[in-house]
């Protein structure tokens, strides 16, 4: 006879589940509304999603408060792990999502936003990501990852263009392979340690002093491959440009931020202890991956003719840059990762939103892509403010002070310097110079070239609405005045990262 299960509800710490449950419940709510009263305007769903995310955010604030008081909490059979990383990354996930959702209210009507399923899936995805970051159980990570990914594939496909199907299929197939890698990697760790909780894996490995080092490394390789895919690390990045190109600009912007921070957190949990235990191989491999990803992505971005594709490569490069934090592995580096990503989300969402507002319903005549550089030629004459804001985002992405991303870069490079990675710091710095070229290229087009013949001047801002403008304004203000909140952010992040032992 099995003994009756006897668990006190309190020990489950159900509160830990609350933030993840909010979007899931919200998604169900949206589906239910649709069930009872279909054919509602998208603005309803947008606002509902926004509210739900708002509630999510409030829960997050609460857990942040709890964390500051009590430190890390485990819950639900010790499956949930609410530590600083989890809270910080959820802040980014939810915050960025809140910035994204209003972009659905564009001037032009796009297919996907008229479906309530879109918003439901979107919320599911957020829930998935939240699960993913708030646990160190490989199963839950896997489940969260796949929930989110599957939702994301669908969201991309819902853009309902040939290219978006293509993108979705590519993303999906590669995602499936990555899932295979993940499960294989988990299996190896399980085989080695008999556990699927990262904490315990680490303990066991350290206890037996990495005796089966080659098997550990095999596991690490598969994990790296799997997260390399999510983080678009070269050579696992090939999906990124196509998927970005295939999905709507807003979605692309979103993809460059949220899935990656989730993956970063998991990567941090997984690789940090390995790095700390001084496996040279991992250090070398990560070093190589970081440098190659940053540099090659930048180089590929140089030759692009489409702005969105360029931004895709630029996002890859930024991911490589941030990946350095995992390699460096100090508290400062990990804090820098979060700082960078918060600032990056402002800027990158802003720049993708700028593409979004310049989006036409159909491909402009004589163009092979939605956002070719040519389209922006002479924008300063037709839409000076939009051009200035776009330039602002570009300069920020290039790491020009005092705009948001500069501070992230600076802090990240500083962390490299502090950990004696001087050469890496130099490479990171000089990559900004390469990157500056293609960001400048857009500025050159906007400010120094004559407008294309036949463009009526409004082309560049056709898709703008108040809500889009608000988001862009928000991002722009955030980009310019980032230095004002920097101290608060830094204190907050450092405390949380430090508090979770990274």
């Amino acid at each position, binding site marked *: 006879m099995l003994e009756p299960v006897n668990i006190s509800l309190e020990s489950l710490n159900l509160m830990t589940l609350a933030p993840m449950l909010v979007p899931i419940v919200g998604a169900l709510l949206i589906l239910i509304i649709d069930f009872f009263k279909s054919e509602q305007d998208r603005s309803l769903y947008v606002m509902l999603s926004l509210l739900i995310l708002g509630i999510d955010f409030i829960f997050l604030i609460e857990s942040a408060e709890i964390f500051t008081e009590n430190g890390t909490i485990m819950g639900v059979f010790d499956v949930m792990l609410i530590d600083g990383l989890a809270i910080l990354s959820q802040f980014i996930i939810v915050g960025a999502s809140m910035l994204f959702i209003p972009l659905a209210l564009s001037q032009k009507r796009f297919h996907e936003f008229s479906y309530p399923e879109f918003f439901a899936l979107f919320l599911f995805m957020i829930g998935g990501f939240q699960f993913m970051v708030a646990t160190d159980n490989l199963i839950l990570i896997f489940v969260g990852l796949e929930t989110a990914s599957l939702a994301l594939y669908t969201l991309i496909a819902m853009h309902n263009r040939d290219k978006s199907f293509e993108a979705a299929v590519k993303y999906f197939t590669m995602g499936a392979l990555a899932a295979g890698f993940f499960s294989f990697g988990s299996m190896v760790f399980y085989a080695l340690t008999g556990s699927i909780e990262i904490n315990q894996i680490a303990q066991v490995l350290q206890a037996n002093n990495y005796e089966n080092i080659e098997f550990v490394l095999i596991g690490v390789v598969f994990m790296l491959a799997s997260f390399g895919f999510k983080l678009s690390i070269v050579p696992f990045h090939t999906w990124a440009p196509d998927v970005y190109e295939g999905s709507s600009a807003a979605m692309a912007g979103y993809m460059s931020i949220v899935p990656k921070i989730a993956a970063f957190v998991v990567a941090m949990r997984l690789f940090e202890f390995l790095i700390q235990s001084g496996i040279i191989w991992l250090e070398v491999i990560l070093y190589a991956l970081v440098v190659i990803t940053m540099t090659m992505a930048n180089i590929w971005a140089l030759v692009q003719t489409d702005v969105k594709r360029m931004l895709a490569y630029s996002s890859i490069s930024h991911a490589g840059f941030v990946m350095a934090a995992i390699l460096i592995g100090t508290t400062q580096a990990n804090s820098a990762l979060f700082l960078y990503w918060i600032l990056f989300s402002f800027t990158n969402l802003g720049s993708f939103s700028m593409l979004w507002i310049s989006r036409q319903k159909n491909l402009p005549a004589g163009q092979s892509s939605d956002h070719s550089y040519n389209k922006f030629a002479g924008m300063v004459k037709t839409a000076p403010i939009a051009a200035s804001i776009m330039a602002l985002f570009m300069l920020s992405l290039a790491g020009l*002070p005092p705009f948001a991303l500069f501070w992230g870069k600076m802090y990240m490079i500083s962390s490299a310097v502090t950990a004696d990675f001087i050469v890496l710091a*130099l490479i990171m*710095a000089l990559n900004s110079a390469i990157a500056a070229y293609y960001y400048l290229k857009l500025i050159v087009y906007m400010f120094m070239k004559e407008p294309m013949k036949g463009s009526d001047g409004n082309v560049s801002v056709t898709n703008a609405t108040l809500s889009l403008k608000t988001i862009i304004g928000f991002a722009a203000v955030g980009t310019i005045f980032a230095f004002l909140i920097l*101290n608060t952010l830094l204190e907050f992040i450092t405390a949380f990262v430090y508090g979770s032992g990274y």
Partner: protein
Amino acid sequence: MLDNILSILIFFPALAAILGFVVDKNSIRTYGVAVATIEFALSLLLWFFFDNSASGMQFMEHIALVPVFGINYIVGVDGISLFIIILAAFFTMIGIASLTDTKNVKNMIITLLFLQMTMVGVFASLDAIVFYVFWELSLVPMLYIIGAWGGPLRIYASVKFFLYTFAGSLVMLVGILVMAYLYYQTTGQWSFAILDWHRLVLPENYQLWLFVAFFFGFAIKVPMFPFHTWLPYAHGQAPTIGSVILAAILLKMGTYAFVRFSLPMFPDASVYFMFPIAILAIIMIIYTAMVAYAQKDIKQLVAYSSVSHMGVIILGTFALNIEGISGSIFLMIAHGVVSGALFFLVGVIYDRRNTKLMSEFGGLAHVMPRFATIFGIMIMASVGMPLTINFVGEFLSLLGFYQQSHILTIIAGIAIIVGAIYMLSAYKKMFFGKVTKEENKNLPDVNKRELIALVPLVIITIWLGIYPKPVLGPISNSVESLVSLMHEKAVTKEAKARIPNPSTLIIRTTAQEAY
């Protein structure tokens, strides 16, 4: 108000620029002139209340920005930076006032006002990160000015300018961060305050590496040989106002930074690298002067001459004694005035003929006597005629370096020969001889608007050449404390020997003692 005068000086133009978007484009020029004049008046006020006898920082302001990481908004001026700030305000003023009719004049003026903010900011900031912010930010308006109003190759030139200097500064950024880390290691506190860093004594090998890191940022900005090739393009393509400000102020950022960062922070490294840098400077002086001689385009010629003169500034800076450093700082101002004026002058003729090729001119002295006179004065100033502003700087720079090396100074002194060669032959080509081209026969002489810019420059050129004391005095005071700081901080014996100890020097205020 005086407590915040530096912040006002920095941010007033930026604020005015933002408000400028509202101003109608027919009135924008007046607006620009008014703003720049106010700014200039404020900078004069700064000078007026500046304590000439003090050597330290004045008008300091301190606002915490990111205290956890030691980044603070700290500004202040001493004799070294004061005059460059005034010069920046001055050039913006006369630049806007004499602006010829261009397309998009509104954008131009707003950009210039932004540029002014960054320029003043660079010279006033005493926190490395804030310095870096302004340093980098100054690229953007200049990029726009060259790229939007420049010549046929403007995009290439502007992007090259931006990327090249940007790449150099990024290496410097790493240097800054390393420096901050070393400070953190030593004191347990993050700080980017330059004055804090000045007090930090570093072992020699650290100094060497850091020196190199900073060197890239500064050398490209200066620009030192062999990093100079962006400059002829930038100047060649930039509109007049862009060249003027680039030559007069932006280039000085590099040399100023050497004085502000490299020397006091890395005295041993400065001594260690003195000769390599001096050799680079000499190559700059002679080689670029020769290249200037080979130019067909007068603006390119002036651009290369700028590089050549910057070599003398570098040489003076690395003399590491009071004479040399004071001379080099004075020469920064002098070169600003003179090369700024030369670019104005080239602009005058370009406006009339739309060409800068010297072969298109000839005999201009017949048709434009006033123009020829002013051009002549500036050329003579440029070749270092005594009683012009440049001579004081060049003389002191070379004099200073002579203490460190006789041979190198003699070679560097060739500057005064090769400088005369290209300048005089250019002057001869453009102004002497008969008027051969029909188009040149009826060129109007300089007009009032152009005189607004040129006459003050001529006056300054001669006034400060005859009586440099009001400027040289404060510079000298600050440099004296700089040199004594370097002497105290120096770790190696060689550095101690190379850097004089100012407290043992006899500073005179009159020659009468001997009689």
